[in-house]
């Protein structure tokens, strides 16, 4: 490989094991990453990837095993030494502090630029700009992280990880699903950055559920299943199919075969939007048909990311939202929308959907407590039973532990629990933003099947996604947003990843549109699946890029 016998590996893990109570998260895992090697770690949701990474970063203490970073043994459970040895991390949910500026977030790891012990504002901000420019970001270092788009936040986390620190040069870069909500152009940029970093001799550990990225970037692949290593092979020995087989251990029935049986024309509109305005929407009108899966596509600022939230009442709006019965829904009243059969799965799970301190059961039942209520008192048994049913139906792992707090579930499993929370209400209209983020290939098929089933049962399903492949696979109709309006309406045979992308890009070609021009330009080398410039780093301008 890239690491000849005489070079010390950037990362050497031997016999790593970790249990959480009765469940095994990692069992005797070995992993070696040479300098300059990009090594992908793959596995289903809950297979132990993030746990491995949290051990490397010193957050978890393993039960057994050793870790060495560029030859130096890592004292386990000690974040500072992990940093000092040159390991840098971008965690699954980034680990940025929302309430403080980008600048301070960048400085959290390596420290502020000081002068005589006082933070030097000018030097700090110059340095921050340089750090951000390295990953092609031109955000204002003074902007608070909470105000940035998910994609930009990922960029900031990467910039922080790559920040130069003369005291401890970077030896190992660890990325946990950095691309889960990244649009294609930013994925490409990230791939460039990774190539550059690895060319400089840094070992890269890369976790993703997007398999095409592996063939683009990774030299070797380690596959985990239930915490055990089931394969460690060079990427060149694999193709897409074999990789999926390794991951799931069984053949998938693709949901889109089933989806094809759904009608391209909805019988009647289950929800009608009329002139929705506010939060980058400008007079958006559309009908969503019952018994149909409608997709919503569009670049950043096109209104795609906000239209479902506005319809449900998560975001303030003007304009009319009408139910099938002709009821006009009040703005900013999710509770009333729910009463009329709407359900909404937000894009940002941690901030807007998950209640991490409550148990999985409590999260699932929160969407409607009525079935569990008798004489004003909650009955525990039916509540548990329903949670267990959904755990099985969506194969949430670990199985049956519905009383565990939500935060001890892996990212993908948390997402399944959010699905359960809404599906159990059997919504008439189900609005979903980025529904399968962080979900593995197998589980994605399960979730898609659930949506198809709900549509077959007469529900109107509306999916807003940055993943055109996902839209093309299960939607019978795709509405493309431009400039805050529904600009194109693809139906039946017209729906394809290519057609959706083309429609999206049409709009951003208009010169006086507010959206950054770079995000609109398709890259020739872009992987076919995700030519979808959406949610781009909004403040970024062309020249700032390298």
């Amino acid at each position, binding site marked *: 490989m890239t690491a000849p016998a005489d070079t010390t590996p950037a990362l050497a893990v031997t016999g790593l094991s970790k249990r959480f109570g009765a469940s095994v998260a990692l069992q005797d895992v070995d992993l070696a990453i040479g300098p300059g090697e990009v090594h992908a770690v793959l596995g289903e949701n809950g297979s132990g990837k993030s746990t491995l990474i949290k051990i490397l*970063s*010193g957050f978890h203490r393993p039960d057994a095993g050793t870790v060495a970073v560029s030859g130096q043994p890592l004292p386990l459970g000690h974040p500072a030494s992990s940093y000092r040895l040159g390991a840098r991390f971008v965690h699954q949910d980034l680990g940025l502090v929302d309430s403080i500026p980008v600048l301070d977030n960048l400085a959290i790891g390596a420290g502020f630029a000081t002068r005589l012990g006082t933070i030097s504002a000018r030097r700090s901000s110059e340095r921050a700009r340089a750090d951000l420019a390295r990953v092609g970001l031109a955000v204002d270092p003074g902007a608070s992280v909470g105000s940035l788009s998910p994609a930009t936040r990922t960029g900031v986390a990467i910039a922080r990880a790559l920040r130069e620190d003369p005291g401890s040069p970077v030896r190992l870069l660890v990325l946990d699903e950095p691309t889960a909500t990244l649009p294609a152009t930013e994925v490409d940029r990230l791939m460039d950055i990774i190539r550059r970093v690895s060319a400089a001799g840094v070992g890269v550990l890369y976790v993703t559920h997007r398999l095409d990225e592996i063939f683009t970037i990774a030299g070797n692949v380690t596959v985990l299943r239930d915490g055990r290593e089931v394969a460690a092979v060079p990427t060149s020995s694999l193709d897409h199919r074999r990789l999926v087989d390794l991951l799931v251990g069984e053949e998938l029935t693709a949901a889109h075969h089933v989806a094809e049986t759904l009608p391209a024309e909805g019988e009647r509109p289950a929800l009608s939007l009329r002139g929705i305005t506010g939060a980058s929407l400008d007079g958006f009108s559309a009908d969503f048909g019952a018994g149909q899966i409608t997709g919503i596509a569009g670049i950043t600022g096109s209104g795609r990311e906000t239209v479902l939230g506005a319809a449900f009442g*998560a975001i303030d709006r003007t304009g009319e939202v009408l139910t099938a019965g002709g009821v006009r829904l009040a703005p900013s009243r999710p509770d009333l929308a729910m009463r009329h059969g709407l359900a909404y799965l937000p894009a940002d799970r941690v901030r807007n959907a998950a209640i991490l301190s409550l148990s999985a059961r409590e999260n699932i*039942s929160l969407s*409607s*407590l009525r079935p569990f209520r008798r004489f004003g008192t909650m009955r525990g048994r039916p509540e548990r039973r329903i949670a267990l049913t959904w755990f099985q139906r969506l194969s949430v792992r670990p199985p049956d532990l519905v009383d*565990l707090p939500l935060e001890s579930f892996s990212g993908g499993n948390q997402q399944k629990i959010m699905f359960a929370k809404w599906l159990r209400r059997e919504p008439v209209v189900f609005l979903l933003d980025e529904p399968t983020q962080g979900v593995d290939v197998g589980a994605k098929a399960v979730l898609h099947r659930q949506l198809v089933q709900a549509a077959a049962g007469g529900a109107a399903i509306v999916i807003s996604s940055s993943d055109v492949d996902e839209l093309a696979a299960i939607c019978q109709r795709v509405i493309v947003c431009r400039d805050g309006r529904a600009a194109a309406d693809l139906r039946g045979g017209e729906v394809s990843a290519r057609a959706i992308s083309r429609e999206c890009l049409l709009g951003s070609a208009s010169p006086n549109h507010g959206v950054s021009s770079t995000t609109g330009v398709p890259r020739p080398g872009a992987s076919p699946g995700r030519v979808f410039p959406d949610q781009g780093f909004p403040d970024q301008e062309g020249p700032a890029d390298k």
Partner: protein
Amino acid sequence: MRISGKRLNFGFDRFSGLYLWGLFILIFGIWEPRLFLTLGTVHSIASEQAVAALLGLAVVVPLATGAFDLSIGATANLSAVLVALLQSQQHWSMWPAIAVALLIGVIIGAVNGFIIVRLQVNAFIATLGMATIVGAVETIVSGNSQPQPPTSSAWARLTQYQIFGFQALFFYVIIIALISWWFLERTPAGRYMYATGGNGVAARLSGVRVGGWTWLSLIFSGTVAGLAGVLFSSQSGPSLTFGPALLLPAYAAAFLGSTQLRPGRFNVWGTVLAVYVLATGVFGVQLITSVQWLNDMFNGVALIVAVSFAVWRQRRARADVTPAQPVESSPAESGPGAAGGGPPGSANGQSPGLRSSPAGDSAAPGGGP
């Protein structure tokens, strides 16, 4: 060794309070067996701390929704003074006077709710301001002189009537505790309140009327504080200053309680346990010495030691979690933005904020000295 540490988990994290209680009883029992190991000790601990326990219960409910109510001390005090004044000066009979005092608590809670929910003022600030205003009202009402306690025997009997040697007051605490436990743990309302406190945004998007539950929780705390004032007045007389002095112990109990029984959640029995563990300690210390400052010292040290022990345990045990271990949020999967205890009163009391500095926490995975 770590394995055995896991096996040898006697529930130190969830039941540390019970162990501490046992330890106190052991120590003081050996030290002063004839004074300490008596029924009288049990009776007087039970009733002496009853009002403190009530105020602890009063704050647990708003804390569950993520709101601090700092006005409970002042409310209790005003109600205590008022209930005495109405009887001894205005010659009202007991029950109407009590009703008015309780009503005052309800009103104060409702106004707090209005300021926090409608005017969107941070709960910490709103209730701090309210506490000051209520203090001023108390001065106006009382003319700054302690009112005569009512002379009727029914008034004294209200709390001091003995049942199995316990003052009736103690049973009131048990009743209020049962009601609040049932409310928080066994009704949809309680579930909505915990959801509101856990993540207000997510709760709202799940159809929870976040503002309404916050409001209701503040009315609850105002009412219970009013009741606590009435009972204090009956038990010990309408002091002009007892309320604010009980504010801190009430919060100490609620926070200590959130490390017990259902760690990571403000909970009723944990709070009651905390009150009585501390009370036992203080009582024992008083038997041994009569130094004045020892009470405060004991309470403060016990609070800090107990909570840091629980945090430490939970950090160690973050791994071998069995249910309900949310004090620490994992930085990677949960993100500090949503998880951090945040400033007091933020809707986001995900963990009851036992650990300070969410920023420091999230810094860890990024690595860095």
